[in-house]
């Protein structure tokens, strides 16, 4: 898959909404869509079967949507919060789903650390946090007055 190219050396251009950041936004967008669609189907057609799992699906979808928008618009602090929640979520839900499969009768995006999605849900928040850190460092070095959030379309 495509995430292998994410660790290439830094470019000269300031990248939040362009360059490698775009790739991250693209992958996040796909997951926002996938998790959102899955949650919508689960909640609307069989909510009573596994309310906890389906509400977690919905939570995952919201987190992905927030992360996607924040990354795309350059809202670094929001992105940091969303991606941190995402990392905690995938670790906690992944662990619980393995320890107590009965509590998760139906798959969520985060079940078994995202096994149903090639483990991308586990890798993605790590890449996201690395990207945000790199962005913060670069802005700190080029604008000593402080890294205010940049907005770019």
């Amino acid at each position: 898959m495509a995430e292998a190219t994410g660790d290439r050396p830094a470019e000269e251009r300031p990248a939040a909404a362009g360059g490698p950041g775009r790739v991250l936004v693209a992958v996040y967008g796909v997951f926002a869509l996938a998790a959102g669609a899955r949650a919508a189907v689960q909640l609307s057609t069989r909510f009573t079967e596994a309310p906890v799992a389906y509400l977690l699906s919905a939570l995952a979808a919201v987190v992905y949507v927030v992360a996607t928008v924040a990354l795309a618009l350059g809202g670094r602090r929001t992105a940091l919060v969303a991606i941190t929640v995402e990392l905690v979520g995938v670790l906690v839900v992944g662990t619980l789903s393995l320890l107590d499969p009965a509590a998760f009768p139906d798959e969520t995006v985060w079940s078994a650390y995202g096994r149903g999605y090639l483990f991308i849900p586990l890798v993605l928040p790590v890449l996201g946090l690395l990207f945000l850190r790199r962005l913060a460092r670069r802005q700190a070095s080029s604008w000593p007055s402080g890294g205010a959030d940049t907005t770019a379309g």
Partner: protein
Amino acid sequence: MTPVLVVAVTVTAALLALAGIASTLAGRRIGLLHLGGAALLEVLLLVQAVLAVVLLVRGDRPADTPTFLGYLAGIVLLPVAGALWARSEPTRWAGTVLAVAAGTVGVMVWRLQQLWEATGG
């Protein structure tokens, strides 16, 4: 939903993803090859969608019809969205954006096939 079409979509998507990654590695923006590949992929997906809808209308129903329809609608949008987005990206990363879209199509088409085979009867 014919296996031939699924394989054709997978091969096209894989080639498009490789072409996209290659252009990123070469430090180039995407070219006509990428847009042509995305167009071919889109045509194959539209043929598949029409075929699936015809089969649905004739009474074949996968067990999880809402999810199947969701995938069917979503997968058709991906090459278009990927190509438009990649075209608006002026750096070498445009190819990788397109590769993400193509890779997603490659995965989704197999999920679609799985959903189809789980027929509700």
